[in-house]
């Protein structure tokens, strides 16, 4: 089931209405049933996977507590089963195709068999979430839960099941286990998030997504057209993914839950590290805590740090999809981080103020703007690698010359760029407002604010009615 459908609206209203009439245990059983209905709505066989993952992780965690001497075996059981599922459904064809190509290059005409199956949506999200539970139990940071329903709700909680944000067991499980009470204040802020999310998805992401799709379908893009398309994709992916997160967080609040934030105005980032503190925060912190830190983090010198960063980002790239362009995207971002650090180290000490760090209060506004603009350009280069799945096309795109475009292409690019910008004005306005005032966390209660919020939500609703795209696109992160 998808958020931007009337099916979901009716489903959610029914579940919420029934939910608050039940005691806590009943609420959890309802949440589990609703989450499984939500997930199996189109392909019921997906439920076999999530149920299997849940049972294995539940048993593994229980086993770790019952037989501490064999903790590692149980952890391996969890990791192998989760990565096994992920590898089979998501990476098998990628692996087989590459093996086939290697064999072909060696003169062996053997074609490994390919799978003809649909990739279960959200498998990357819930397997990672499930593994966070067993890893935390293994580390002794969390006790294994006895109640299978609670663990199953934690893994399958429908608002964030298919596209995150990935929640830690230590954060979400206690909420699943606690008694929840309906809070009108939470519901109000949740409603705001839902409205904002729908506006971002239906009006911004889906409209600019059409522009990006058109440009990336071109056989012979010119420099300006290509970058107009990349700009459109940059807006699309942020609006799309953050919309999903907002709707997930908003609906969760109506059910008495609080999910972590996943985005903090990433296009206001002033450096690569700043960007990764703002973009897909839940995934970044997952990789930080479960890959980067166990590898040694930055504790063993610069060279090891660089290796760890590259390994983490390569894996993060591969997590996004079974394609070399995602690996390249991860590598690119890893190199950006290394280059930034190397640049800071190579500067003379006298010229190495904290000025290049975000948050330095004495930076002139102009420098800040230039840093944001520069970082936005770097992010866009990354999005080109992310969006373009054909490696030959990436090479071609990076070789395009700005001067070689026809006047039609220049005009068309300006048109598409401006149209994208117009659709994305609400995004930029919000980010700039927050950047200037830092007021995004203040939830002041008061009637004037409620009236303003009502007007804003009403405007968003009107915009959705009038400007929603005629072509409804799936959430991008569903494919991961």
């Amino acid at each position, binding site marked *: 089931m998808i958020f931007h*459908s*009337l*099916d979901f609206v*009716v489903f959610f209203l029914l579940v919420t209405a029934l939910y608050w009439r039940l005691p806590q245990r009943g609420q959890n059983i309802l949440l589990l049933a609703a989450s499984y209905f939500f997930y199996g709505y189109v392909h019921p066989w997906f439920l076999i996977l999530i149920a299997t993952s849940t049972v294995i992780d539940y048993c593994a965690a229980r086993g770790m507590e019952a037989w501490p001497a064999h903790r590692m075996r149980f952890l391996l059981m969890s990791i192998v089963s989760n990565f096994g599922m992920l590898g089979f459904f998501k990476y098998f064809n990628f692996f087989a195709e590459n093996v086939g190509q290697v064999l072909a290059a060696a003169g062996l005409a053997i*074609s490994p068999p390919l799978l*003809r199956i649909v990739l279960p949506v959200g498998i990357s999200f819930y397997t990672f979430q499930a593994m966070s539970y067993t890893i935390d139990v293994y580390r002794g940071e969390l006790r294994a839960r006895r109640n299978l329903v609670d663990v199953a709700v934690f893994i399958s909680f429908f608002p964030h099941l298919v596209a995150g944000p990935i929640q830690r067991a230590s954060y979400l499980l206690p909420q699943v286990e606690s008694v929840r009470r309906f*809070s*009108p*204040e939470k*519901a*109000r802020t949740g*409603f*705001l998030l839902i*409205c904002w999310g729908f506006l971002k998805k239906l009006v911004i992401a889906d409209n600019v997504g059409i522009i990006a799709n*058109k440009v990336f*379908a*071109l*056989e*012979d893009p010119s420099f300006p057209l290509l970058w107009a398309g990349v700009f459109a994709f940059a807006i699309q992916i942020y609006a799309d993914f953050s919309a999903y997160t907002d709707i997930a967080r908003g609906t969760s609040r109506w059910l008495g839950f609080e999910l972590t934030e996943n985005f903090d105005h990433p296009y206001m980032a002033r450096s690569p590290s700043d960007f990764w503190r703002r973009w897909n925060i839940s995934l970044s912190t997952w990789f930080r805590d479960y890959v980067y830190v166990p590898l040694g983090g930055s504790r063993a010198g610069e060279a090891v740090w660089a290796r760890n960063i590259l390994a983490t980002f390569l894996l993060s790239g591969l997590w996004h999809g079974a394609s070399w362009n995602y690996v390249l995207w991860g590598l690119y971002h890893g190199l950006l981080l290394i280059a930034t650090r190397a640049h800071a180290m190579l500067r003379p000490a006298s010229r190495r103020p904290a000025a290049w760090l975000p948050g330095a209060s004495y930076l002139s506004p102009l420098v800040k703007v230039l840093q944001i603009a520069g970082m936005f350009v770097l992010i866009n280069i990354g999005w080109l690698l992310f969006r373009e799945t054909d490696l030959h096309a990436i090479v071609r795109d990076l070789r395009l010359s700005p001067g070689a475009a026809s006047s*039609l*292409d220049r*005009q*068309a690019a*300006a*048109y598409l760029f*401006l*149209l994208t910008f*117009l659709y994305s004005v609400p995004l930029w306005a919000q980010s700039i407002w927050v950047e200037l005032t830092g007021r995004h966390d203040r939830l002041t*209660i008061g*009637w004037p604010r*409620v*009236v303003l*919020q*009502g*007007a804003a*939500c*009403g*405007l*968003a*609703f*009107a915009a959705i*009615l*009038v*400007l929603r795209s*005629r*072509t409804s696109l799936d959430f991008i992160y569903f494919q991961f």
Partner: protein
Amino acid sequence: MPGDRGRLRPSLQLAALVVLTLLAPAGLRLAGAWRAQPADAASSYLPAVQGSRVRAPFDPTPIGDLARLNPGYVVIGDSMAGSRIDPLVLAQLTGRPIAPMMHAASGSAWWYLVLKNLVIPARIHPRAVLIFFRDTNLTNVTFRLDDGWMLDTAAAEREDELNAVILSAMEGPWYRVDRTIDAMYGADTARRWIEPALTAEVGRTIVPSRRRRGAFMTSMNARFGLDHLRAMDAADLQAAEDREADFGRFVNRSALPLMLRDARAAGLTLCFVRVQRRPVGGRPPYQSPALRRYIRDLRRYIEANGGIFRDDTGDLALTLDMYEDGDHLKGSEHRVYTEILYERLPSIFR
């Protein structure tokens, strides 16, 4: 009681927020009341999917051309037909002129309009009108409906039957709710001018001259035309999802019954050719059980309504090496395919 008031206030604020959200879009009705339509915009012939807009005029030229040519066969379709049939070879084989009426990236709505508004009015009597399609194209009337400019030149001022079919095809379980909300807020009316106004404003900013702007928009559309698309995108590998492969559910929400009815009334024989998609591993492409059932039902329906059905799928003569990209055949294979089809359909070609 202060305690009760304290508890009541957040609930009232939540209710106020929801009410305001639902009331604010009523402004769209007010805005629509004073906003006149753009002078050159007209109601679309497909109001189910389009608001008022400037459309390209109907082009009657092909009617005269067809009448003059008096073809033995008319070929209608998209790039599936264009990348298979060589009209000259077919003309040589059959000894009759061929009229190709193909448009890349077209769908069944365009095929229907071509048949109804161009072929039938030409009052010609070809031995058959061949319509090429992939899998479920014939019962998916909304497939490739976005490119309104392509339909324009084949569409009359009103296309009520096609519009009704599209409406019914779009009618999901919540369709009426959707329409009611739109009607309640006057969203349709507002959409007709706000959306074009937005894109027109961008166009005006980029190309201030009105005359040059029209030419610019046409050139930009052409820039994103099929000949500039990547092979795989052009091929538009449409996954034949099982949900679409439900013939009984979709046939009366498609243009297929209209095509068969109009052809029968005009004394034309329609021959629907289902092309074989790209073979995999030296074998014909996989077909799900649902798709097999769909094709069986489609064949029965077409044959029961006086049409001819030809399925290329599984024809061992159509091998992988004939394919260029996606489901398209290589240019060098057009002759071969045409000869194969000629052999396979003796009832209409000989």
